[in-house]
């Protein structure tokens, strides 16, 4: 598996603040959905900003799709990465939905005729074409995040980084956005990095990286990570629903597996138990 992002021995701290990362390393596989989890203040969002060159690295190296993150490559790298941020309100630049999707295209000086096509196409992919002349004040948080995603599709990147993109949405809006990103990932062959503390979302990822106090605690497939509830709660996270249920069954004397099962596999296992 090719690593589309390599983070090698980075160290970072904000001025006058404690060291956030010391000799931190991790890799992101191309074409996978990687969830980076950790409690607030663990440095997850800083990591996303470092990858996109939005904050300057002090030491170490980050390579994105063969390019080292530095002043010279910054715009090529930003062409490869689309970011969706936490607050839907604070990433809407345009006055209306279509203006906002066009913003990134305007920055790249795409001619107007071509822009119109791309904007229409992108908005249709996220189901927001009918809302094209709405102003942000008349959209829900979930709809604004859809527009942000359209703005990313418009630039056809290789990587999407969701920086807590669903944490301010209600559960339904959250589900819809995740489904949408999943569809877009498949349609466009993208790599997705999701920075989140929604464990149930992380449980559906291909790879999970657990970050705590500026260190990678664990990086593996969800099966390997989510079996141990105590370890997760000890670093301020919760366990996925299925792990909690298995643990509750274990307490009731049911001989249950200690590894992580997703919803479907847990249902199958329970059915086997009763048959």
């Amino acid at each position: 598996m090719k690593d589309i992002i390599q983070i090698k021995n980075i160290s970072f701290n904000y001025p006058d603040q404690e060291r956030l990362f010391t000799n931190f390393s991790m890799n992101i596989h191309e074409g996978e959905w990687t969830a980076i989890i950790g409690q607030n203040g663990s440095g997850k969002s800083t990591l996303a900003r470092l990858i996109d060159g939005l904050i300057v690295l002090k030491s170490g190296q980050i390579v994105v799709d063969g390019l080292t993150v530095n002043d010279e490559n910054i715009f090529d790298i930003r062409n490869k990465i689309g970011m969706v941020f936490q607050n839907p309100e604070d990433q809407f630049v345009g006055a209306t939905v279509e203006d906002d999707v066009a913003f990134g295209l305007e920055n790249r000086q795409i001619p107007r005729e071509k822009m119109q096509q791309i904007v229409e196409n992108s908005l249709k992919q996220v189901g927001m074409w009918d809302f094209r002349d709405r102003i942000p004040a008349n959209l829900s948080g979930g709809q604004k995040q859809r527009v942000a995603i359209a703005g990313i599709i418009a630039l056809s990147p290789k990587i999407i980084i969701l920086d807590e993109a669903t944490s301010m949405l209600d559960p339904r809006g959250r589900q819809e956005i995740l489904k949408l990103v999943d569809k877009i990932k498949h349609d466009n062959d993208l790599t997705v990095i999701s920075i989140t503390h929604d464990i149930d979302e992380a449980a559906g990822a291909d790879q999970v990286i657990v970050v705590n106090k500026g260190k990678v605690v664990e990086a593996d497939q969800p099966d390997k990570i989510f079996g141990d509830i105590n370890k997760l709660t000890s670093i301020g996270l919760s366990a996925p629903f299925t792990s909690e249920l298995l643990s509750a069954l274990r307490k009731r004397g049911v001989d249950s597996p200690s590894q992580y099962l997703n919803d479907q596999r847990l249902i199958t296992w329970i059915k086997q138990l009763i048959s």
Partner: protein
Amino acid sequence: MDQTINFKQVTHTYQAGTPFAQNALSQVSVTIAGGSFTAIIGHTGSGKSTLVQHINALLKPTAGEIKVSGRTITPATTNKNLKQLRKHVGMVFQFPEKQLFEETVIKDIMFGPKNYGVSDEEARLDAKQAMGLVGLDGSLQDKSPFDLSGGQMRRVAIAGVLAMKPEILILDEPTAGLDPRGHKEIMDLAEKLHQQQGMTIILVTHQMDDVVDYASDVIVMDQGKVVKHGEPKDIFSDPEWVYDMHLDLPSAAEFACRLITAGVPLKTIPLTIDKLADAIVGVIQGGQSHE
């Protein structure tokens, strides 16, 4: 004092008398029992926030009346003399850290009590007590609230409301944007205030797991009306209806529904993980006894 809140035929129209007039509440009659932990649920725009803002008269009804601890709020209620009511009904808005403004944590928490004419010393005592309640370390009191972490800032804001010693506490999505640990701390605080201090808690939320874990009563709103009012088990007993309201089931209930669809014969729909585990164990044993 009696903490019961009584809505009688309350209608609220935004921008009344203009072409943009909108009924945010229509003829709502509901009683929130004193001493209860009541969750208010409903999809976005169903009128939840409008409803709770009537309880401390931030909004006044266009028609109808609200009785809160011996006071009656009607369309004719003026903005004068609402202070006592607002002291009695503490209101924590969504993202309450956005209301912080003082130079130090302690001053910000003292702001509420001082608005009610409490002396400096007394306000300071109330503030310290509130800091203890929300679990803020005393050493933070002279820091600027803007230097704290997001979760701490939220607790400062909540302490600012608790320092006024309200008897009714309204929490509007108090855990939005927090991580799992922060979430649990805030919800446990609400439970503590409910059980130890006998506060009436009104929680506006989208998190159904919190509803079953903490609330004793649930009010379901849809299109400006109260469509159901009861205990959690009554509300979630009909999954179809819950989905029709554009709401979710608690995780355990949702998983139970999927088990039933897959052919696992559960008799009821459990709302919590423990009840679900019990039910599954019941089926297993039941199954074994048949053999």
